[in-house]
């Protein structure tokens, strides 16, 4: 069953005389228990899409069903079952961590006793117990992000939206955050995560939707996205005087899609690296070529983004 089903979502923003098309007809379906990454540059429309799906913003056109409820009418029913951690997090800086999570729990309808119990449990789980009674102002970026997650999880949502959760975190905090997200997901929570980090989408998500200029350009599993692309890249380090011979040899092989010379390397684009490597080694052996190095690179999501949008995500 789909936990998110969106059709033709559109949203325009007017500021002064300029009109910005934030979303131009988004269709999206997310399976229950899935973890999907919305990958795109800043300004692509990711946050707008998230705010519509979390009932915070009314779309200009289109329909969506979240946890089986239409977003426009069943808002309260949706809000009980979803969690949302915005880019800024939303913790009150002057309040303590515990106060922040407690408030969230109480507004989700937990009784005072239930809330107290649940909040301690979460603070222990996210390893915030020792700083729980300090004001949030004093928290590090990583601690703050974990607190944001705790707030988003306090009512045990079945669907959690995370908007750019790893922005500004150091690598360790990031890895830690990923672990938290994975364990939530293992616990049965469906997750939607926006990111402009390729490795994040790659590491966490079982589906990735590339979003650019308010449209979803392509959606697939990370592996599927990479597979439909250029294939794997094999680089062969070969003695210069044998380069031409090797080139001719590999150009005639069916498994080689593309071939080029890079310095003293032969760069082969192949369908599937795993099966190509033994064949390559066999050929090198049969023709008495002296192979010095061999590397296999899989295309990154950056290559995928470049392929579909014509721009690198880093430049976008």
């Amino acid at each position, binding site marked *: 069953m789909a936990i998110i089903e969106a059709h033709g979502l559109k949203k325009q*923003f007017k500021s002064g005389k300029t009109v910005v098309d934030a979303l131009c007809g988004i269709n999206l379906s997310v399976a229950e228990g899935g973890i999907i990454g919305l990958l795109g540059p800043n300004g692509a429309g990711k946050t707008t899409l998230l705010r519509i799906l979390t009932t915070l913003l009314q779309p200009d056109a289109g329909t969506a069903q979240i946890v089986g409820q239409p977003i426009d009418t069943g808002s*309260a029913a949706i809000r009980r079952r979803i969690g*949302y951690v*915005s880019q*800024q*997090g*939303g913790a*009150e800086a002057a309040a303590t961590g515990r106060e922040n999570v407690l408030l969230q729990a109480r*507004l989700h309808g937990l009784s005072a006793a239930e809330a107290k119990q649940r909040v301690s449990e979460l603070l222990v789980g996210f390893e915030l117990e020792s700083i729980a009674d300090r004001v949030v102002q004093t928290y590090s970026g990583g601690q703050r992000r974990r607190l944001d997650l705790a707030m988003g999880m306090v*009512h045990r949502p079945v669907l959690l939206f995370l908007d750019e959760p790893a922005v500004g975190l150091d690598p360790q905090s990031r890895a830690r955050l990923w672990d938290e997200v994975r364990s939530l997901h293992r616990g049965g929570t469906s997750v939607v995560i926006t990111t402009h980090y390729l490795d994040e989408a790659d590491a966490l998500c079982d589906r990735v939707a590339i979003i650019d200029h308010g449209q979803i350009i392509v959606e697939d599993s990370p592996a599927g996205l990479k597979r439909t692309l250029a294939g794997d890249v094999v680089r062969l380090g070969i003695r210069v005087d044998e380069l031409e011979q090797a080139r001719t040899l590999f150009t005639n092989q069916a498994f080689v899609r593309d071939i080029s010379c890079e310095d003293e390397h032969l760069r082969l684009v192949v369908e599937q690296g795993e099966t190509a490597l033994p064949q390559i080694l066999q050929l090198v052996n049969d023709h008495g070529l002296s192979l010095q190095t061999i590397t296999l690179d899989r295309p990154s999501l950056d290559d995928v983004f470049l392929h579909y949008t014509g721009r690198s995500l880093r430049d976008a």
Partner: protein
Amino acid sequence: MKVLRETMIIGLHSLRVALRNPLTIIVGLLQPITWMLLFAPLLKNLPTTTSFSATTAINIFTPGMLVMLAPITSLFSGIGLVTELRGGVLDRLRVTPASRLAIILGKAGRDLVVLLLQGLILVLIAWMMGLQIYPLGILVAFVLLLIVGLLMVSCSYAFALTLRDENAVASISNVLLLPLLLLSGLILPLELAPGWMKTLAALNPLAYTVAAMRALFVGEFNDVAIIQGFAVTAGLALLALFWATRSFRRSFA
């Protein structure tokens, strides 16, 4: 019932956080207290043609200072709301099933409690300066103080949610504050004003609040100014609250 519960939850939370910093209460009090200490003594020697001569000057002056607390404390609350808007705090509250009205009322409630505490301190100081106490009058005056506080904080929240900019909210509040205060007769009674100024003052809701507050402080409970003051202040407070809640519901993008 649900709205009431959520209002209490948000109000108590915000109050606990606000009171952790004692400056919250003191800053708003500084200006009225300074007026009380350094201006009120001058009133004793005013010519006897004004109403100051009829009763003790402090009984005329204190209610004005009480009203002054409301805009000083609450007209700038919107700045904090813009900060919360930017920090995602409002989004995080809005994504819960909590009523929008409760979120606004709870936050406003914090300001009202602070206002109440400030008012009590102010009246205590006035009492030490010779204020003649009419208990019923003071009780009703505090109800009026809360209503005018609600008016100010709702306006400020509506500015904040419409303008979404700390500086803009601060500017508009500053621009409004002085004429609002001077044209309300809260420092000197408007009896002293020339005709054109009286006409202008008639358009200032705070003038009605001050008039009612004054009648309550001098024990003239039959004065029609009390009813007028309550009607104008409460009517506008409800409108402002509606405006703020409406802005809160729709102004997000």
